[in-house]
């Protein structure tokens, strides 16, 4: 029995894309890379203690003083470990990837939530995106975009976008039928129905999706260090390569601290929306 030449076919497609769109992809990649670099350097201008205070303030607003204190301690610890530059570049990568995922994912989720056929089409695609081992995304990213932060963002977006789509889709589907009927019975346009009823009611669920997207972005940004994304992931990779257990642990702890802070922050926003009183 002959093997179906799947790998060969995919290679051919990738090659074709590279030949035909290579230049424009490169141009896009360069400008996007510049944007990330600028962001990183601007962030570096902010004194470390001010940034910590800003985070603490946000934590206090959405959650309470406990999270604020935890945030100050955690971030000060990262600074003390002298991982501040790596922390900043990881932060930028996570935020940009999450932002792109959310900006693309929520509209797709809205379409899926309102259109059953689109929901049926996109569901298996999302399954595919989420279950494919994340390392595999690194290969085409590497081929098209080379080594650096841009391919890292590309791979991260693919990996982190599904929850934004799924939760938005789910949130809109879960809006009680009678609330949708209220919208229709009072003569709302489809747009009014979306903005005045479906999105506000689905918002807590959508926030849970955003939380998931944030978390997946962080985990993928660390993995993406394999194709040249800087930051904490690069440190972890170096520690693995050189078998420096202590160093790996330091970088690892820093990732955990960021993860906890981002998670509690986004959850806090979600639950303050859920209670309804603003």
């Amino acid at each position, binding site marked *: 029995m002959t093997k179906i030449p799947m790998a060969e076919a995919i290679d051919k497609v990738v090659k074709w894309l590279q030949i035909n769109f290579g230049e424009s992809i490169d141009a896009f990649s360069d400008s996007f890379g510049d944007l990330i670099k600028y962001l990183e350097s601007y962030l570096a201008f902010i004194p470390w203690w001010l940034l910590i205070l800003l985070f603490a303030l946000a934590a206090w607003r959405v959650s309470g003083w406990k999270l604020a204190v935890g945030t100050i301690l955690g971030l000060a610890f990262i600074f003390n470990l002298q991982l501040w530059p790596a922390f900043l570049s990881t932060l930028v990568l996570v935020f940009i990837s999450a932002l792109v995922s959310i900006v693309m994912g929520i509209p797709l989720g809205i379409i899926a939530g309102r259109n059953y056929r689109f929901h049926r089409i996109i569901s298996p695609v999302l399954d595919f995106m989420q279950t494919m081992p994340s390392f595999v995304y690194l290969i085409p990213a590497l081929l098209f975009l080379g080594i650096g932060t841009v391919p890292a963002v590309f791979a991260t977006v693919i990996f982190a976008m599904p929850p934004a789509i799924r939760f938005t889709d789910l949130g809109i589907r879960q809006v009680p039928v009678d*609330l949708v009927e209220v919208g229709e019975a009072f*003569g709302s346009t489809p747009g009014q129905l979306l903005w005045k009823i479906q999105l506000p009611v689905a918002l807590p669920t959508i926030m849970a999706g955003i939380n998931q997207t944030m978390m997946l972005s962080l985990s993928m940004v660390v993995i993406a260090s394999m194709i040249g994304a800087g930051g904490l992931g690069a440190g972890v990779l170096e520690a693995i390569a050189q078998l420096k257990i202590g160093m790996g642990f330091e970088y690892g702890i820093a990732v955990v601290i960021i993860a906890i802070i981002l998670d509690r922050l986004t959850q806090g926003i979600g639950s303050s929306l859920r209670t*309804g009183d603003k």
Partner: protein
Amino acid sequence: MKEKIIVKNLVKVFGANPQKALALLKEGKDKAEILNETGFTVGVNNVSFSVNAGEIFVIMGLSGSGKSTILRCLNRLIEPSAGEIIVDGTDITKLNAKQLRKFRQEKTAMVFQQFALLPHRTVLDNTVYGLEVQGIPKKEREEKALKILEIVGLKGWEDKYPSQLSGGMKQRVGLARALTNDADILLMDEAFSALDPLIREEMQDELLSLQQKMNKTIIFITHDLNEALKLGDRIAFLRDGALIQVGTPEEITTHPSDDYVAKFVRGVDRSKILTAADIMKKPQPLIPLRDGPNVALRIMKEHGISSVFVVDRERHLQGIITVDAALEARKAGIMSLSEVELEHGPVVSEETPLHDTLTAMVDSKLPMGVVNQDNKLVGIIVRGSILAALAPDYSGSDSEDELAATASPDHKLVFAEEEMEQESANSAI
């Protein structure tokens, strides 16, 4: 009366391709056969009715009988499969999307069983929703909403969120939201079913008093017969998507069209549906205050009764004079009843339920007077008529000509008074 809504041969078949089921319906197959053959459910089966402007039209049936489906066809939340729905002369099944939105904004407002308040909006913001989507300026719509919120008794609650309200208050918001829209037609889908019994009755009473002021056309869905009888000007009975009977509460309870309806109304407490006005007899004989005990005695003798109602010129009830009192007055040489101390029997208003007249009757030997809003005597009730009304085969209050008499009692009384004056002249020996 003007017909506001006319529904002609409305059919709703649930399923992707209802044409086949529609064809089978035309052949006269029933719901179960069609489900077997096509797998489609017939929700509404060839229903026709009309609703008059300003009436409360109750659609009554068990769950699954298609009542909510019919209601949702009236504003096309559910698309009818066939038939016409004519509202104010326009067939709304033919409206396009934009026209339909306008129709829903201007003609109809809906109240939902589970209240369906938007959880992220305050009471006030929920109430203005209908005007908001119409693009009415914020100040104007909020002024209007505040007025309605005051009417439904929610003043001071404008800034609360739905999660902070009790069930009864939530439905008041639901009602306020519908009323703020100022539509002619209110569609109420089991609006009070989710409330506990005391609050439910309170809301029913409130709806009735609101309706007196606003005079909307209300389609009210319920599975509760007592609610239907209390609210409905007319009631439509529904079973398996088909209309079985349409009629006033009295027609339904006294002449059920088939066993299904009969079974339904059997358990009804008649003493709660019938009112004093339904069972009273015309107020005769009466005696004017200025007449003397002699006239009173003669009238009692003529009619074979032992007491007679005494009224003044405006037919306000003054009291009752009994045979014994009249005899004593004659012995004492009194010439006018105005000098006699009259006895006072129980008095009820026209709307008093029969149930309550019973209690009033127990404590008194005297007949009961029924007065209208202006405190004029419009009828009398004796023990016999209460018992007759409670008997199972009771149908209607009086014979038709007597009903006509109560319809214009003033004319009748003037006539009666003249008659009495003549008689008293004759008997003044």
